[in-house]
């Protein structure tokens, strides 16, 4: 174990030494470690002085100072993104990675050595900045007793954010042959991180620090997935098999088409060979997806427990309208047209495409979460309808089950296909680039979606339009 970690240490040590030889890395780290925290101290001091005149200093102590603490921790770790792009894409561009690839190092040793080297200096600088900031608060006699848990949260959050950025940068770097291209692609990291910072800022000003644990947990999961994807794609083959950053649309289309149509010569053969094969690959993702949806229903039920119907405004009339077949929720049969079926079908189609787009950029996670939202709502309403005198099972049988019997399996299949696409992205494939793996996974997803999910949605829309209202009337009365 320790013997296999030794090369990791050798790589890390060299990289860190190299960073400390480069003033372009040292200078920003020093500024963000020493001067920026002092600037934040001054800012906090000035704001406290300003708001003291209006008796609002407590909220400044409790909200602003911890927020600035988080900012002070975050800024130095942004350097780790630059370092990692330089370390991974830069080495490929300068060809200095070739002698390393020719050495007995394994791919993961090289990856881990570089990963640790990219994170460590920036993280130490970040912690130093936090320390400088806290000392500065004491010197300024700003009487804020830093809660130990919050400090720990900030330290962990900073480390995890750094890990997310660097592991994301590795994936970006493996897709390019130059630092320039890597910098362009790094907006895929910078933009989500900026959004994340805004969410965290809201949490800090909200003062619900317990929620920070959720943010930390979520980012740990993302970091693990990114590292998994990074180790899958940071390979000798991937690094040296790529020569130029050219978007080959013809090849991309051919690869996708090959994955989608396979060897089939007819629609029947396509269903028999390709669709069946793609469905077989979902044998593990399907139960996982069912579990996720069950959890979503449970979350909905749990959320409903905290709802005060009397105080919720429009919720009560809505629930009452569900308990009877009269009202707007069931349009008269004569008005319904085939166009209505088509609209319902398009609505489901939109949800699935939104889920797959979210899933593509999040290893399937956000795509599955998007599909779970409907089931959270389902659990939420089913848990509330008894309060208007309607048994939950009657709600399900009268309003959901008729078309749900077809629609829910379709959603499960769609979600499972998105999950599998995410798994493919983080699974190493010999002799295959990320792009190729991604296109093939997209082809498999398209087989399931076009071959099974969309037809099922069409049937479900037809049932929802023509059958469900009849059953609702029959069960709930006119």
């Amino acid at each position: 174990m320790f013997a296999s970690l030794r090369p990791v240490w050798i790589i890390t040590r060299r990289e860190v030494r190299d960073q400390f030889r480069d003033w372009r890395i040292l200078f920003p780290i020093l500024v963000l470690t020493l001067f920026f925290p002092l600037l934040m101290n001054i800012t906090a001091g000035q704001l406290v002085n300003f708001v003291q005149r209006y008796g609002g200093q407590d909220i400044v102590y409790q909200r602003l100072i911890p927020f600035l603490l988080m900012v002070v921790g975050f800024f130095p770790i942004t350097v780790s993104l630059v370092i990692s792009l330089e370390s991974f894409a830069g080495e490929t561009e300068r060809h200095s990675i070739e002698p390393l690839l020719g050495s007995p190092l394994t791919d993961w040793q090289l990856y881990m050595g570089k990963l640790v080297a990219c994170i460590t200096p920036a993280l130490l600088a970040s912690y130093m900045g936090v320390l400088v900031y806290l000392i500065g608060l004491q010197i300024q006699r700003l009487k804020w007793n830093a809660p130990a848990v919050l400090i720990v949260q900030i330290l962990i959050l900073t480390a995890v954010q750094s890990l997310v950025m660097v592991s994301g940068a590795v994936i970006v770097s493996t897709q390019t042959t130059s630092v320039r291209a890597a910098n362009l692609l790094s907006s895929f990291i910078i933009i989500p991180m900026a959004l994340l910072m805004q969410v965290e800022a809201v949490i800090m000003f909200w003062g619900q620090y317990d929620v920070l644990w959720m943010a930390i947990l979520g980012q740990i999961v993302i970091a693990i997935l990114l590292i998994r994807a990074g180790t899958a794609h940071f390979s000798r083959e991937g690094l040296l098999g790529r020569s130029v950053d050219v978007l080959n649309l013809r090849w991309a289309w051919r690869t996708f088409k090959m994955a989608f149509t396979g060897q089939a010569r007819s629609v029947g053969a396509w269903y028999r060979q390709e669709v069946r094969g793609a469905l077989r690959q979902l044998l593990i993702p399907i139960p996982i997806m069912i579990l996720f949806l069950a959890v979503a229903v449970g979350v909905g039920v749990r959320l409903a427990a905290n709802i005060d119907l009397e105080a919720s405004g429009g919720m009560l009339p809505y629930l009452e309208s569900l308990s009877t077949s009269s009202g707007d929720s069931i349009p008269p049969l004569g008005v319904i047209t085939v166009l209505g079926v088509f609209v319902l079908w398009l609505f489901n189609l939109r949800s699935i495409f939104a889920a797959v787009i979210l899933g593509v950029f999040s290893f399937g996670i956000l795509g599955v979460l998007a599909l779970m939202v409907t089931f959270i709502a389902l659990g939420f309403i089913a848990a509330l309808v008894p309060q208007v005198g309607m048994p939950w099972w009657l709600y399900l049988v009268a309003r959901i089950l008729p078309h749900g019997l077809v629609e829910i399996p379709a959603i499960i299949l769609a979600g499972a296909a998105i999950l599998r696409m995410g798994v493919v992205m983080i699974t190493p494939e010999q002799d295959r680039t990320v792009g190729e793996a991604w296109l093939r996974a997209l082809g498999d997803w398209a087989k399931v979606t076009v071959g099974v999910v969309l037809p099922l949605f069409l049937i479900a829309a037809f049932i929802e339009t023509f059958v469900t209202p009849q059953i609702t009337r029959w069960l709930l009365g006119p």
Partner: protein
Amino acid sequence: MLATENLTKKFNDFLAVDGVTLQVEAGQVLALLGPNGAGKTTTVRMLTSVLSPSGGWARVAGYDVVKQPARVRASVGVLTEQHGLYDRMPADQYLDFFGQLYNMQSSLRQKRIDTLLEHFGLTGDRKRSIGEYSKGMRQKLALARALLHEPPVLLLDEPTSAMDPESARLVRDAIKELRSAERTIVICTHNLAEAEELADQIAIIRRGRIIVRGGIAALKQSLLGPVEYEVRFASPLNSREIYFPPGGKLTSKGSDWLRYQADQPHGFNPYLLHSLLAQGLPVISLQEVPRSLEAIYLQAVNAPGDEVLDVR
């Protein structure tokens, strides 16, 4: 020591290496020749287990490049076309770093570093940053890196490019020494004179395929015909008749020279010389007509079709 059979590499739709078969024994040098983009570097990368073959197999130092990649890489010293040095690092630290990666003991590492820096004339510059090195010095340092762990197999891509004549001679001598020390050496080069000087066999690769393979002498014999010898005279012969003894075949003749072929030159050449002198002819030289590797190379790479000439 190094063997491949139908080694193939495909990148998406592009066939970079197409069924390459090679055999290089310990103490032999193979020169892999070919135009830019012919597949030399991809072949070398497969031989170092950096790229995995799409087809065929290769064994290096007795290890399979697919099944035992770590052992293959530990047994191979590679000089890449792009040296890939760390500019901010001093030379001795750079070699020490690679020595550690190859798991060399500290004392042995230092000894090897001292020896190699001394051998390549870099001792005085060992503490300088590599970024301050000249092209030739960088090349020598990269070569020192490849030799550091004393690998039994060496794969050298353009080993003397960018070097001044003295340094190039130093490197060529080093390669000869390594051959004498029973190392297996593959050099990829565009310097045909160098290949001719160093190689025991050559392989010419074009569009990923080996089109010519074999010993240089055998290839010359096969592609350029039998050896010719040339006799030069001090003054024009004018219309003087010359007696040409049996055992040789006069192929061409000029005013002050003649060319011939002989099945057994060891016996025939002294006999001819004696005969010409006896006829009172003013002979000033007798030598083999030079036939360069360049002639073989150009003939091979410009030949139509994909026929393989194998004269091993």
